[in-house]
């Protein structure tokens, strides 16, 4: 079963629109959502969760329809938005007591053990913590009940490298359960590269690319040519480009690369940056 199934999702604002998003995430997988600032990542997540009311399309989460079955869906998911959303006066103990009443399967011991692993002082109020510490509480919160789907908007922003590494390990552990899935957005491509099974590249409110990560890196390659040669290659054969004073690097689908050229492996970072700059 797919944890997320989205068809033709649209949301229009005065100066921005999310257009015809089709996307599915199988259980047991991690989907990385990537895009430039303003590409629509947060809008997409909020529209999917009905925090923004969609204009068209359909959304199914854990086999149930949004918005009809939202309350039931929310029992089985954890959401971490950019603002964690806890009251500034709350300590970890306050958060724990409220979440115990919120989720029937809330695990207090698990919550406090995550806080300890992340080095979050449990006695300080939320307003006294740094942005990174707040994110860590949000992550601990998301992982401390039996959620089958995690929806995380920029969870690693503000985290130090050690905490980011720990977080990625936790996500990998989490998806060992085959009925669990994760959708997370990030600007940090290396994080997505490490952990994701699928990549969705959003640009100007549209899905630019949605593919299994391994297939992406297998199907595309980097070709180094001179600037003059780059200009001669038809634009439709070029997926991404980076021009420097020494020449040009092209991202091309391997089927578009002739036998006379050699292609080096592409990283996700190159793919994203060069496609965005095309």
């Amino acid at each position, binding site marked *: 079963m797919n944890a997320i199934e989205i068809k033709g999702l649209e949301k229009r604002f005065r100066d921005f629109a999310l257009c015809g998003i089709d996307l599915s995430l199988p259980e047991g997988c991690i989907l990385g959502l990537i895009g430039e600032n303003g590409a629509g990542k947060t809008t997409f997540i*909020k529209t999917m*969760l*009905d*925090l*923004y*009311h969609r204009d068209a399309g359909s959304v199914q989460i854990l086999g149930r329809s949004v918005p009809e079955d939202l*309350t*039931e869906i*929310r*029992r089985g*998911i*954890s*959401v971490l*938005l950019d*603002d*964690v*959303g*806890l*009251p*500034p*006066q*709350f300590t970890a103990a*306050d958060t724990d*007591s*409220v*979440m*115990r*009443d*919120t*989720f029937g399967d809330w695990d207090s011991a698990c919550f406090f053990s995550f806080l300890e692993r992340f080095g979050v002082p449990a006695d300080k109020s939320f307003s006294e913590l740094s942005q990174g510490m707040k994110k860590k509480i949000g992550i601990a919160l998301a992982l401390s009940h039996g959620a089958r789907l995690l*929806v995380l908007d920029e969870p690693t922003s503000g985290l130090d490298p050690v905490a980011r590494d720990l977080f990625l390990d936790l996500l990998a552990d989490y998806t060992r359960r085959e009925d669990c899935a994760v959708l997370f957005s990030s600007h940090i491509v290396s994080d997505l590269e490490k952990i994701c099974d699928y990549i969705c590249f959003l640009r100007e409110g549209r899905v630019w690319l949605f593919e299994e990560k391994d297939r992406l890196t297998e199907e595309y390659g980097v070709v180094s040519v001179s600037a003059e040669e780059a200009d001669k290659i038809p634009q439709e054969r070029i997926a991404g480009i980076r021009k420097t004073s020494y020449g040009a690097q092209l991202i091309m689908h391997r089927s578009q690369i002739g036998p006379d050229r050699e292609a080096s492996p592409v990283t996700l970072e190159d793919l994203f940056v060069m496609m965005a700059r095309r």
Partner: protein
Amino acid sequence: MRALLRKDLLLMRKAYKPYFVSILLFGIVAAFKPDYTFFTVYPFVLAALMPYNLFSLDERSGWNAFSRSLPFTTQQIVGAKYIATLTMLGATWALFALLQILIGGWNAGELLHVFGILCAALVAPALSLPAAIRWGTQKMFYLAVGLIMALTGLAFGLILGSRSEWLTDGMPVPAAVAAAALMFVSYKVSVRWYQEKEF
């Protein structure tokens, strides 16, 4: 729902301690000097403002958006604020009644008078909560507050002005019915606007 009430209770305890102290002090003065209407009215205004302030805190902290990702219905989220309102005002009335009995002795007329003030005080949250949901606590703040203050003042005026007539004669029923009806309509409007709201 229990989680939402617990969260509001914890927040009130942490963020609004001075409110509780003020209500207690004013209650003691009012019990000694029941003629000083200001000392009776002001604590009820404080208590009535608390849910609006809670909503404002929720908005600023991002709780409003976060709570929409938790397994609560719109009715529960909105209902919790109305229950907090009724609890705060009910507790204030109970405190005044207790102090009045302990300090001033049993006086049914005075208790009914304070009950009338409680009913009038409900006008403020009944108007301010839907307005906060619809326009936000910052946007249109002054217009909303001005209107709410005027209407609440009018309600207080009606209650205080008619003190010697129907309230002290033991007939607070019309005030209670009007307040209950207002709160019910307000709740319904709030739920509707909350459902339409985007976070």
